[in-house]
């Protein structure tokens, strides 16, 4: 049960955080260049977005869950399992950001899922 909570938090809160940040940045728009004043303007606009704060909070939660998982399991087990975020990201992108995901990306997501399953089987 503890493992399920930890890995769900790492993947769901991590991916959810990235989706929130991505949503905030789509509202903010692209930076026009790499001039420090332009970057500062984009950062200030981003910090005014509630989605950005929600995203940062969720990513912090995912980081602490990662620390919790690393206190129990080997790093060569924990980090590959976090690749599940590619699976969650593809579904989250489709559902929340209305992105189009092509067959090649679904194939990659399937490969990641198979790989994570193999890593999980190596746990015992």
């Amino acid at each position, binding site marked *: 049960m503890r493992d399920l909570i930890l890995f769900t938090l790492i993947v769901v809160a991590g991916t959810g955080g990235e989706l929130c940040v991505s949503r905030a940045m789509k509202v903010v728009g*692209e930076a026009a260049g790499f001039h420090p004043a332009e970057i500062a303007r984009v950062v200030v606009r981003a910090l005014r977005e509630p989605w950005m704060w929600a995203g940062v909070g969720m990513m912090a939660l995912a980081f602490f869950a990662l620390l919790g998982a690393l206190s129990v399991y080997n790093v*060569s087990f924990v980090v*590959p399992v976090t690749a599940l975020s590619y699976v969650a990201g593809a579904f989250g992108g489709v559902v929340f950001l209305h992105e*189009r995901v092509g067959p090649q990306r679904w194939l*990659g997501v399937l490969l990641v899922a198979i790989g994570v399953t193999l890593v999980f089987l190596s746990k015992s």
Partner: protein
Amino acid sequence: MPPQLADQKPAVGTDHKPLHLKTFLMILVMIVAGPFGNVLLGKGMKHIGPIALWPVPELFHTALKVFSTPSIWLGIASLIAFFISYMLALSWADYSFVQPASSLAYGVVALLGYLMLGERVSPLRWGGIAVICLGVFVVSHTSPRTTARKPAGQN
């Protein structure tokens, strides 16, 4: 210039600029610093031992132990180095080049776990990691943008 050519701009993707050494160096930093950071976090957390989150005073005690462990701070510094090199690499090269290259990080983290922490990595786990690397490579080698562009300042 003839009028019919005056408005023509170079087609996107046709200017094959040579990838600079600095881009490869940044990608190298990425695929070492990211896994190195995770391995250091793992080392720090293993050093702390079992953690307690409840009751609340125990949570504070755990947080104090975590943030007074040098390996944790070195790990965080390494992950920040990874993030900066990732941003720099993305500013010099395409996402569809940088991201697939970074899929190697899953292999590097297992290698560093084996070398630095003495973790036993079974052939099944190596196989799983190889399939994950391939999957991340395939995912990343697709178009990074499927929605319309919007300049900053337009809501």
